[in-house]
């Protein structure tokens, strides 16, 4: 079990290493998947970019909190 957890942690650190980025990106993709499947697929593209930008901004603000 410990080995599996260590492996998953290594994969997480290798790919992204930040929970906000992972959760925000996942949330963005799920949201856009739902939007694109509906009638409003034309609006999905700017929303995807906006959600990802917001995710990056949140991650940066958390990282620099108290150091700015």
């Amino acid at each position, binding site marked *: 079990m410990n080995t599996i957890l260590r492996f998953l942690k290594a994969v997480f650190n*290798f*790919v*992204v*290493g*930040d929970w906000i*980025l*992972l959760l925000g*990106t996942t949330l963005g*993709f799920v949201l*856009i*998947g739902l939007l*694109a*499947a509906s009638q409003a*697929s*034309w609006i*999905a*593209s700017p929303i*995807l*970019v906006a959600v*990802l*930008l917001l*995710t*990056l*901004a949140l*991650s*940066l603000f958390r*990282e*620099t909190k108290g*150091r*700015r």
Partner: protein
Amino acid sequence: MTWSSILPTFLASIVEFVEALTIVMVVGTTINWKSSLLGAGAAITALAAIVVALGSAFLLIPLSVFRLFVGFVLVLFGLKWLKKAILRFAGLKALHDEEAIYEEEAAALRQRGVPPKTVFDGFGFTTSFKSVLLEGMEVVFIVLTFGTSSASTDLEKTAGISLASLGAGLALLLVVVLGFAIRKPLTRVPENTLKFIVGLMLTTFGTFWGGEGLGVEWPGADLSLFAILLSWAAASWALVAFLKPKKETQT
């Protein structure tokens, strides 16, 4: 006739090859060429194995699922790079000073007589591998689609695929020559700036491919890559500007 498949395959393949080349070039320049080219080579080998194993059944592979996976991982890679680049440009240190760690490792490698730029890098390999594999798959789809679209007999299909492959081959040759031509000028760009560009490129392509995989209709198709890139670049510079002054007023 089947000859008509050469030009559209050539043009469509150029777009895909340029996208793959962009990633291979930025990984090669910022990380190292060994990892980047090994990743590209492994992707080409994997692609050839898939094509040989599947034959015409290749067209049954759900490309959208593959695009979604590659797009998602590239966005994660890209955001990670972009975040570090923004912190560097804003003059703020990351929690883990990876630059210092890298310099220490590089110094240790130099002491052992190993040039750091030739050490295999998993991140560079994976990024290059995924991008080349995805774009290569798209080129195979293009070749098979254009090559067989106007053919009605098996003979015509074979001829059509051969001519479409010729179009794709010419596109690859042109893009590789272009890559060699811009390789030197690219090395003159400062490393931190290049890393910023890598973050922007990975995030841009990841957003585009991920969106395509989800069924998003990008206005202007591949041309929207420029709009996405501009959005990411503008937002990143805004974030750098926002983070910078606060630090300066404190010090």
